[in-house]
């Protein structure tokens, strides 16, 4: 039976992933801000077959609360086989440009708070000597683009931090998985017109669980984003600066 901790558990991708673990009979501990939505999701996961579901409210930007929340999770689960970090927002770049305060807040929500939570987990995971820390970063972190470089900068920090941590925890037997979804049709992206590149949360969730199962270090979801981002990363800067991506 897998013991799974999910932070940002009310996000659409996290919920879809939790369902797969629930159908496997996992024991889950869920963290998010909204208690009522947590309760709805916990009830759903129980009917889907979860062995046990416990919840705790946590604002991920409140870094002081991270350690107590992790201790509480370990008390509930016993040990942690999988941690999934899925909280985040999609900042409006124009709003960030208009306010330094907004920019810093978004960097915190999508970058610093994630890194802080992972850092708080490291001693536990290292001591366990097993398990997987899976974090939802983004293709946006691969290169800064004019349309969302605040979000991209936060995710780039997350991806880079995880890349180093992956090397660091490998000898200890702990896997660190960087998840880079492309466009996903979720409440976070409700305002966008959807085209052929858009994926459903359920298919992204399947990809996440597959990557966790096989101990992957990094995964683009859907997989074709690896090709797109390979090209985008390799466009010379003198051309890239003229693009309106």
């Amino acid at each position, binding site marked *: 039976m897998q013991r799974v901790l999910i932070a940002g558990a009310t996000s659409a991708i996290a919920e879809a992933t939790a369902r797969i673990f629930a159908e496997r009979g996992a024991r889950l501990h869920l963290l998010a801000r909204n208690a*009522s939505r947590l309760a*709805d999701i916990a*009830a*759903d996961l129980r*009917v*889907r077959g979860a062995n046990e579901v416990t919840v705790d409210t946590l604002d991920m930007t409140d870094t002081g609360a991270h350690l107590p929340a992790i201790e509480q999770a370990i008390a509930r689960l016993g040990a942690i086989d999988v941690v999934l970090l899925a909280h985040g927002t999609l900042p409006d770049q124009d709003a960030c440009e208009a306010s330094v305060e907004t920019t810093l807040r978004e960097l915190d929500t999508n970058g610093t708070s994630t890194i802080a939570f992972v850092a708080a987990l490291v001693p536990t995971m290292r001591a366990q000597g097993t398990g997987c820390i899976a974090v939802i970063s983004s293709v946006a972190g691969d290169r800064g683009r004019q349309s969302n470089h605040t979000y991209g900068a936060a995710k780039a920090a997350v991806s880079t931090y995880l890349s180093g941590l992956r090397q660091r925890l490998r000898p200890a037997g702990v896997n660190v998985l960087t998840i880079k979804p492309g466009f996903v*049709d979720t*409440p976070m992206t*409700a305002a966008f017109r959807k085209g052929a590149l858009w994926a*459903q949360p359920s298919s992204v969730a399947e990809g996440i669980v597959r990557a966790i199962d096989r101990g992957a270090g990094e995964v683009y979801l859907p997989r074709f984003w690896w090709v797109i981002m390979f090209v985008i990363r390799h466009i010379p800067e003198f051309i890239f600066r003229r693009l309106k991506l």
Partner: protein
Amino acid sequence: MAGDALSWGRYPRVRAPRVLPFPDRHGNLPDGESSLLPYGNGRSYGDSCLNDGGALLRARQLDRFIAFDPATGILECEAGMLLAEVLDRVVPSGWFVPVTPGTRLVTLGGAIANDVHGKNHHGAGTFGRHVLDFDLLRSDRGLLHCSPTSEPELFAATVGGLGLTGLITRVRLQLRRIDGPWMITESIRFRGFDEFFALSAKSAARFEYTVAWVDFAAKGKALGRGLFSRANHAPAHPLHRPAAPTRRLVMPFIPPLSLVNRVTLRAFNTLYYHRQRRDVAHATTHYEPYFYPLDGIGQWNRMYGPKGFVQYQCVVPPADAPATIARLAREISAAGGGSFLAVLKQFGDLLSPGMLSFPRAGTTLALDFPFEGTRTLRFLDRLDDIVGAAGGAVYPAKDARMSGARFRQYFPAWQAFAPFIDPRFSSSFWRRVES
């Protein structure tokens, strides 16, 4: 949402529909002036799930279980859940949905809003009869708990109410016990409508599910031939246990022309009618291919080409049913036979709980027609003349074209229903038929 919000018939089309998210059942209806209509999984055929000029609520996002008691078979869940998701969870525990239409890709909310029926109508009645209660979110009164005893009038208006009375957010449903996922089926060839009626009468008591396929492309004396299918859930350990189907086909693109035409139809129907060598064929099958043969072909509706198709489903009263069905059949055969998907079923006399519920005692006939503009519309008006004269009705969930006058004749309760419509809710269908 990914792609556009279409109805299943792909006719009519609404340009750039606005689809609003609704991920939290405790949330409020979106602010704004535009009219609203719940949009589930888009399996209504015509325009009852469309709201041209207004907005759609993405009800499919409400897809959480709330509670399931394997001892009593009472299931409580959010209303955007698909029948398919319910079945995946409850069948292994020995339960089945009490009533199912020919696709499991409909939401529970949609099943209530159209008070859907299935092959067991003669024994179980409509879906609404098995709904214990639901929550209805309205713009004027907030969240309301509705059941046959609490807000009974609103319950009756909402069952079969085409999504117009508010957004159904939560449902509690009584499931039906089964021993396993298998079905024991019989397929019997019949040569005329009189044989169909005799088989229906003879089978109703012994078989939980009955339905017939009719070859409407047949001419002259052959017209009225078909295959009568009757089935029961199998006991726990039938002798032959087929595996659950795994193969899934998808219609990957829209062909430039309808693949359904007079030539393909006559050939296909003749082959299908003769597919069994004997007059009676027995089989044990998994419930999925039995109830949902078309769900195995994703996006099958695309085979009708870019113009889409319309479905016509009517019910005619029992008294003159044989004569009325024969009259309709002659009209359909003369026009080329519509499509392969032609279904005939004898409804039982159990009362439907909704004010606008379609099922009622009599014989129901359903078939698809490739949409060919005014030719198709005029032809269906002629069918309406026959159904109207017989005192029958046409199913709104499948309709894209009936006149307002016909609708009001078929559903005289529409006047009593109208006051229950949520002041902010409307649909393309309703605006078409209310005046």
